[in-house]
């Protein structure tokens, strides 16, 4: 190879398909449910039997509008349905009801946070609603089996502009979208259940000797994990560059246009896919069985009012107003209710840092165990406020507070009451404290000498003695007070 003065800029756009968390399907009232026995959530409409007609799911449309608003899109005042015609066994009508030229939302953006505090704005071209297809099962080598449970489930397709240039940006965007749809309550976005699928479009702009070469755009469909997405983008960037190097003039977007590749999880590579016959002549026509969606100002305002603060804005506010670190703020803005809890507690006067420590310490541990959000572990804002107050006042120490925390979940009980009942209150009576200190000093003469001797061992010995007092007290002694007493006793 000649010396490499090439500048390679990946240009990446992405379509994300989000299955909406509605009770029923998009155009019929069969259950929208994952994992049920085959063909148990089907009806004449979603099987596409003769003479049946679709009826729009209102909740699905509202969810879609919410997403559009949260993505800063222009919500269409007038939106319509179109049929996308193609034949496939998991598409019983052999057309998909979708939106072609007048989708529900257009022209928005999502800001994503990158390393080093950089924020990148990813443009959103459009977001439209459509129905999902059923599933083709390939277990049997001799034939394919078709399950239509998923056929007709509402699918929101969000199309970004090709604004991403690095793997980091792609993953950040995917994660931000993942968080957003869960935040809004429009999708559970459970990757294992296939609630979110990624379709990146990737090509390279290679600058060499004053010219820019553009490689053909490769679209990879149906990636259902962040890992697959990362591997796909990484592999494609490299593969495309190698392919271009081998044929800089021929390997161009002008000559080859757009190509489809598949992702092979076993090898973590993309693979060539045979061109589907007539893959692109969808013969769109307006669906005569469905009437348009007219979104009034009123309706938009009502839906917007229900959205509230979005994750990025809230994260930023937690950092700026409450002094949280990025990591802390990020952890507390995975869902709206957890941040709400923090807000309520701080608004009631609780110390921010201590709230955060409790929430992200024991709170997060319990949440992880239970597989739920921190807001759902049964903690009330009032309880948090009270417990933090006790910590600040020193009437309970950290260890005891931890125990009290666990005990108060799901009960609504006052932590002070619990601490009192369970003997978790810090003992502040000086004679009791002095007695414990005396005992510890008496039991550990060596440590006492080490403290008195000074030098390197002193701090360690002091710490040891503090720990002994804590042990003797059963955790009820306030550590800072213990330290003070020890120092006084040992004439430090």
């Amino acid at each position: 190879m000649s010396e490499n003065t090439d500048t390679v800029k990946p240009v990446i756009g992405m379509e994300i398909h989000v299955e909406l968390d509605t009770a029923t399907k998009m155009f019929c009232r069969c259950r929208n449910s994952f994992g049920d026995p085959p063909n148990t959530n089907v009806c004449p409409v979603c099987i596409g039997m003769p003479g049946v007609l679709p009826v729009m799911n209102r909740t699905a449309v509202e969810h879609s509008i919410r997403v559009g608003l949260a993505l800063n899109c222009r919500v269409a005042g007038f939106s319509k349905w179109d049929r996308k015609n193609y034949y496939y066994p998991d598409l019983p009508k052999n057309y998909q009801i979708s939106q072609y030229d007048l989708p529900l939302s257009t022209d928005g953006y999502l800001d994503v946070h990158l390393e080093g505090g950089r924020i990148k704005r990813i443009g959103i071209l459009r977001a439209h609603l459509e129905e999902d297809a059923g599933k083709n099962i390939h277990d049997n080598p001799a034939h394919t089996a078709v399950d239509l449970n998923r056929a007709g489930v509402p699918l929101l397709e969000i199309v970004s502009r090709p604004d991403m240039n690095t793997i980091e940006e792609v993953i950040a965007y995917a994660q931000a979208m993942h968080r957003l749809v869960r935040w809004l309550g429009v999708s559970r976005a459970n990757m294992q259940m296939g609630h979110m699928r990624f379709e990146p479009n990737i090509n390279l702009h290679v600058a060499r000797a004053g010219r820019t070469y553009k490689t053909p755009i490769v679209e990879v469909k149906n990636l259902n994990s962040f890992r697959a997405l990362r591997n796909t983008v990484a592999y494609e960037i490299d593969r495309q560059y190698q392919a271009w190097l081998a044929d800089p003039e021929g390997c161009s977007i002008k000559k080859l246009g757009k190509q489809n590749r598949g992702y092979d999880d076993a090898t973590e590579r993309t693979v060539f896919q045979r061109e589907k016959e007539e893959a692109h002549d969808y013969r769109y026509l307006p669906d005569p069985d469905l009437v348009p969606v007219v979104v009034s100002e009123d309706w938009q305002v009502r839906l917007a009012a229900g959205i509230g603060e979005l994750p990025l804005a809230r994260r930023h506010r937690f950092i700026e107003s409450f002094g949280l670190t990025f990591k802390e703020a990020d952890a507390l803005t995975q869902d709206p209710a957890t941040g709400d809890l923090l807000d309520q507690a701080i608004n009631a006067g609780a110390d921010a840092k201590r709230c955060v420590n409790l929430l992200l310490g024991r709170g997060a541990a319990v949440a992880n165990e239970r597989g739920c959000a921190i807001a759902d572990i049964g903690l009330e804002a009032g309880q948090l406020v009270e417990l933090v107050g006790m910590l600040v006042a020193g009437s309970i120490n950290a260890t005891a507070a931890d125990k009290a925390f666990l005990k108060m979940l799901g009960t609504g009980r006052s932590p002070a009451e619990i601490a009192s009942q369970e003997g978790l209150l810090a003992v502040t009576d000086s004679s009791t404290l002095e007695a414990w200190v005396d005992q510890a000093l008496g039991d550990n003469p060596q440590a006492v000498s080490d403290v008195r001797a000074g030098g390197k061992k002193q701090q360690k010995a002091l710490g040891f003695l503090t720990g002994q007092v804590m042990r003797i007290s059963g955790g009820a002694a306030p550590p800072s007070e213990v330290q003070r007493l020890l120092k006084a006793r040992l004439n430090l």
Partner: protein
Amino acid sequence: MDLNAGIASGELSAEEAAKAYLAVIEATEPKVAAFNEVHAERALERARRTDSRRRSGDDIGPLGGVPVAIKAVLCTQYGKTTCSSKMLANFRAPYTAAAVEKIEEAGAIVLGKTNMDEFAMGSSTENSGFGVTHNPWDLDRVPGGSSGGSAAAVAARQCVAALGSDTGGSIRQPAAFCGVVGLKPTYGRVSRYGLVAYGSSLDQVGPMTRDVTDCALVSRAISGHDPRDSTSLPAEAPDYLASINTPMDGLRVGLPREFYSDALDAEVNQAIHSAAGVFRDAGAEVLEVSLPYSRIDRDAGGNLSSYAVACYYIVAMAEASSNLARYDGVHYGHRTARDVDDIIELYSRSRAEGFGQEVKRRIMLGTYTLSAGYYDAYYNKALKVRRLIKGDFDQAFKVCDIILCPAAPTVAFRIGEKAGDPLTMYLADIYTISVNLAGLPGLSLPCGLSRAGLPIGMQLIGPALSEETVLRAGRMFEKASGVARLKPPMIQGMAAN
């Protein structure tokens, strides 16, 4: 309705009525072949239940005990729903069409499913996958289509009323050919749930009856909002029967000047003008109106030319190509018995075997007009012309209350006469298609007989939601002209039903 009144009063039993009509079917079917399926047992069972309800003093409904027939295009949970196509020869629907549910709720006794042009594509019923129906007025002639079986059944007195469907004239034209009354309601008036789709933005279910009064009664029974059909109008239908005999003062009847070309059979032309005269004599004002975009010309080559026909067929075929894509041998319907290598072969063979030529033609034409590069030139263009056609009607209805025109350019033609050239057959629809494009109500009723004794049908068209006006005008014509309840010679010998 006399029969319903008779049954309700106990004068005669529903079971006797059902038996009598089943007997007519048995006697006349070898000649007429209007039915694909007769559900004799079910009909008798329901008739007996009607009698039992009557004896208990319960209301048997406005159509209680009245034998009716249902076009094969409507889904029923009993029997098969075939659309007279081999593609659906064995299909059993797990649901019943809204219109059928409603007619049964009103008490009607369904006798069976009637023959039609396959998937409602045709104007003669010659495109049925199960054989042709013969016009009771002349067994060598077609009954019209696509609701030919329903029209013939009513004409032959095999039933009191029938349901048909109309996309481009499929109720009105066979009604004209068979001398019966047929109504295509305003689009959205009758639910399309369970009506197997052909041209979804054009299709409507409607009644076919012996006279206008019965038509009003059946219309009312089947009309009304249905949440299962998103295109169903929110309004409940008025009681058409209540106003049917109310005199119409100052009725303005419009005659479209563009409809009277040499395309129109001379006798039909004369009959329509006589009908106009009947309205005039009865006190209506008859005036000329204009529907420029529905005009019928002859082109340079001397062939009949109509923008509206082109517009209609582009729209209907495009929608049909998409609506019929579901018939693929996978989830229901015909699947090829031959070994296939892949799914594409499965689809292509099954569809080739299950569909007749006309259906294939229309699917392919629809696919063509929607395919890449052609959407704007054909389909989108047709949708624009559609708006212009509707605009013409809106203008015309500013100066008249109803429009009077032929239901078909000729009387019933002979079986096989038009089978050779599809385009000629399409042009038989020139008077009916505009009404579907505009979504308006159209009533077809007999206005006389030709010299050869064949029925001539006229059409009354009204603004959207004006079925009441159209039906009243039709009743007015019946009374003034005396042309009503025509009986084909073949049944004139039979006992009065």
